[in-house]
């Protein structure tokens, strides 16, 4: 492995990538997310969003007022179960 400090495990975004983004003028959490891709992988930022926010602030970026937008699903759901939503529902006993 090369010497990288990985912040976002899912998308392999390093501390260097985030610092570079702030240096290029992407100073807020959402912009750095869009530029580097942190928080856009399997876990949707559960592992890295707080760490990236702290690093952005340390690198001279903005203090976030809100997290990256947490869209459903919170946890992965098989498409087959969502595809079933059009079918006749059963009441939970």
């Amino acid at each position: 492995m090369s010497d990288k400090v990985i912040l976002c495990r899912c998308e392999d975004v390093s501390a260097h990538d985030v610092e570079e983004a702030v240096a290029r003028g992407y100073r807020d959490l959402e912009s750095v997310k869009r530029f580097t891709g942190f928080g856009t992988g399997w876990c949707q930022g559960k592992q890295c969003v707080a760490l990236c926010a702290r690093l952005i602030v340390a690198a001279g970026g903005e203090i976030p007022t809100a997290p990256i937008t947490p869209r459903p699903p919170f946890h992965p759901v098989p498409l087959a179960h969502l595809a079933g939503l059009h079918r006749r529902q059963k009441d939970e006993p």
Partner: protein
Amino acid sequence: MPAIAGEPVAVALAASGRYVLARSVKYHRPRGPVCFSGRCDGCLMRIDGIANVMTCRAPARDGMHVETQNVIGTAESDLLSATDWFFPGGMNHHEMFTANKLVNRAMQQVARRIAGVGELPTRLVPDSPPRDARCDVLVIGGGPAGLAAATQAARGGADTILLEETGETGGQLLCFPGGVVDERERELNAPAVAAELTRDAESAGVRILLRHGAVGVYDDEVLAHAKDHVLRVRAKRIVVATGSHEGAMAFEGADLPGVLGVRAACALLRHGVLPGERVAIVGTGVWSDALARALRARGAEVLGPFAAAEVTRARGRPAVRAIDVTRDGAAASERLACDCVATAPPPSPDYELAEQAGATVVFSGEAFGVSAASDDGATSAAHVFAVGECTGASGLRTMLAQARGAGERAARSLRAAAHATTGAEGGDV
């Protein structure tokens, strides 16, 4: 590979000394489970032809076919990890191979073959009809705060459903290897407190739905995911008690397999699995101390707990074999051999569902959490309460008081609403 039937596949693999389960998407760095609680990417594997199964949540069965994804070779030795060496400074995919259109198109073809997680299933997965439920108060999360809120709401006369994503209620208390002080100032072992809170909820009449993880909050519906269907719940009040998890820490090699959270290490101990023979603990707190005691009691060697700033690097290939520590005042770092590193970063509250329900989420300087009243969990959304660790709260008694306040207030507001309705119609209550 041997496994106890029903224990999670990732736990069975850890028991056999296997932490290297996967490779990362871009650089193909080795990956292993970090959280053992469905909050990371490290345990994804292909099971019986289905891609991207979180093996920390998949119960082991005899004859199961478990495969590594995205590798040429094995998870331990993946040819594609050359990508990591080719790009030591990282990839700037905004400008890479963009000078020439043809080169760009060719590179996209290559990247598409290498990137991504998993392959399509080999068989058709049948869809299943959804289920529906209604209630007065819906509590999301069956940890101590969720149980206390649900109990109080039910005692206040509200028809209450509690959704718990795992197979048992009690949350973090189930794994904490030590004593906690409960509401009556008794020092009890943590699982005993979990059992008592569960019994209270059951006898108050709370409808507890295990293995039902809430995955989304829409206008007036909460969507939950069960083993083979989804459940839609319509509720008049929502109490979010989703807890918190351990996020990542920033030191070189922190993404190596064998580096996991202290709570995850405690969860392994609960399954009777020693996370390592020689475990380094990075970061301090009650979990770090409890883990250190529990590991020593089981005959493991413990290094630390070290302050987070003292640890500069984890080393090993493909899994962790040593850490570099610079002790306070020392000029040089020393390399300490270990086969597991347990980290205790600041807790990351699970704020997502509360935010979807309309509650405000704020940054504390350390992490994001739901902004909620400390006495009754009230949020910026009138029908939504948030209690426990998802609000950044800590300390069992503090959280239980907040949760009981929320349950009570949710039930009271429903009684008041019912009263107002019957009053308007001219009837007596």
